[in-house]
């Protein structure tokens, strides 16, 4: 069995968190018969980067488990009220930010970068905790894919990993050759982050913050090991230069997602940089592959950070990809 790489970058991304404040849609909650005044009901730290891999659909289970597991305060009471009156199924639950539905099959970290449009180099503080509204009715089927159950999230995740593998190798042989155990380990490592987060929430309820920090650290390390010991083999591609880099680019104003076959080296075998790739695909937004020579205000944001344009794209892919093996790049314009 391989061990996870002692890579401070993948580890930092794995440990990244994003505080989110979920509130229920007031109208819907009233219609469901909620008796208490609707207040934003909790803040939890959605893991951000590793958690790029934590998907919103997992919150469906969080909500269910809260109904069962929490005891004595107003928040729990509220959920019990909801539980008695909400007879729809989990697939009816959806989320929005300022009226824009959130795609449950996107990683949360990506959704944050995309929907807040927050530039990490701006002078203002980030909009945290991130306010997200939960809905139980009127599922916007024209904008969102309906997830029937949590397994759908796992299927999407594995399919993305296969799509990434196909881009790197022209086949999905590397993923398909993973043992059943390895495949399970990949998903479990990711899923377990979520269990930890749930635990965190219970801890917050009981104001056991120290306890939370300690247990988080241990679990995070375990899950990092679990996930990355398998993922490392995929991402590093057995040391072979990938044919193409699994990469998606998201532009402002709801532009269609850009995904192209990006080769990591030029015709002379020189490694291309992130700047080269952005310049190739978006020449008007990145007139030069070098940062200092750009008179455009566009900047790539990955995991809430503006990476240097000079980094080789292969390195970026291996170190900054989300757990689905894709490098998700949000392009934001400066002020």
């Amino acid at each position, binding site marked *: 069995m391989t061990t996870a790489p002692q890579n401070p970058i993948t580890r930092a991304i794995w440990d990244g968190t994003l505080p989110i404040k979920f509130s229920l849609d007031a109208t819907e909650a009233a219609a469901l018969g909620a008796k208490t005044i609707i207040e934003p009901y909790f803040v939890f730290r959605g893991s951000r980067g590793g958690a790029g891999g934590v998907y919103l659909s997992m919150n469906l289970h969080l909500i269910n488990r809260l109904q069962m597991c929490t005891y004595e305060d107003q928040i729990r009471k509220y959920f019990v009220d909801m539980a008695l009156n909400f007879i729809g199924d989990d697939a009816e639950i959806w989320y929005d930010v300022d009226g824009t539905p959130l*795609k449950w*099959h996107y990683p949360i970290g990506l959704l944050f970068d995309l929907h807040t449009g927050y530039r990490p180099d701006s002078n203002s503080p980030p909009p945290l905790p991130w306010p997200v509204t939960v809905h139980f009715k009127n599922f916007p*089927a*024209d904008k969102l*894919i*309906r*997830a*029937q159950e949590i*397994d*759908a999230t796992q*299927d*999407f995740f*594995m*399919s*993305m990993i*296969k*799509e990434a593998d*196909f*881009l790197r190798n022209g*086949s*999905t042989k590397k*993923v*398909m050759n993973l043992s059943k155990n390895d495949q399970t380990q990949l998903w479990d490592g990711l899923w377990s982050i979520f269990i930890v987060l749930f635990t965190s929430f219970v801890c917050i309820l009981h104001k056991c913050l120290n306890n939370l920090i300690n247990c988080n650290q241990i679990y995070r390390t375990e899950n990092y090991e679990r996930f990355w010991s398998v993922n490392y083999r995929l991402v590093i591609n057995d040391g072979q230069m990938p044919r*193409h880099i699994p990469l998606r680019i998201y*532009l*402002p*104003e*709801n*532009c*269609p*997602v*850009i*995904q*192209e*076959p990006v080769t990591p080296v030029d015709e002379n075998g020189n490694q291309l940089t992130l700047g080269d790739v952005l310049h190739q695909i978006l020449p*008007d*937004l990145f*007139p030069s592959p070098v940062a200092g020579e750009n008179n*455009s205000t566009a900047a790539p944001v990955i995991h809430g950070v503006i990476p240097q344009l000079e980094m080789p794209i292969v390195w970026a892919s291996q170190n900054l990809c989300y757990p689905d093996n894709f490098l998700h790049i949000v392009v934001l314009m400066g002020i």
Partner: protein
Amino acid sequence: MSVQLSDHTDPSPPPSSINANSSLGSSAAAAASSSESNQTIPVPATSFERYKRRDMSKVVVRFRAIGNAPILKQNFYKITASNQFKAVIQFLRRELNYKASDPLFLYINSAFSPAPDEIVSNLHKCFNTDGHLIINYCTSAAWG
């Protein structure tokens, strides 16, 4: 295992831009020329309009039945590149005369199932084989 999609859970507008072009037949030449009809229209550098504009060019998809899935009379179709993959799913369901409850699974290159909101032009650019986007379909989950 793959996600099963059904029409009633996904009531987006019908994919009117999918045309069964029977004259296309299996002509590889026609297929090749269709993918060359992309045109770029210059716009000011600060505008995202050019990225929002629908790519009306067509790409060729080729359906291949797997297992006991029914075979289509025609397996080449030209599809508007800016469509989402869900338009392909809905189109195939209609062609097969499948009810919403009938299981149907779609794969690219016998390898993976794209999300329904992936864009056909992206899939075509990344995964085409000799200019054709090969889509396998079956009535039970096949790959993974």
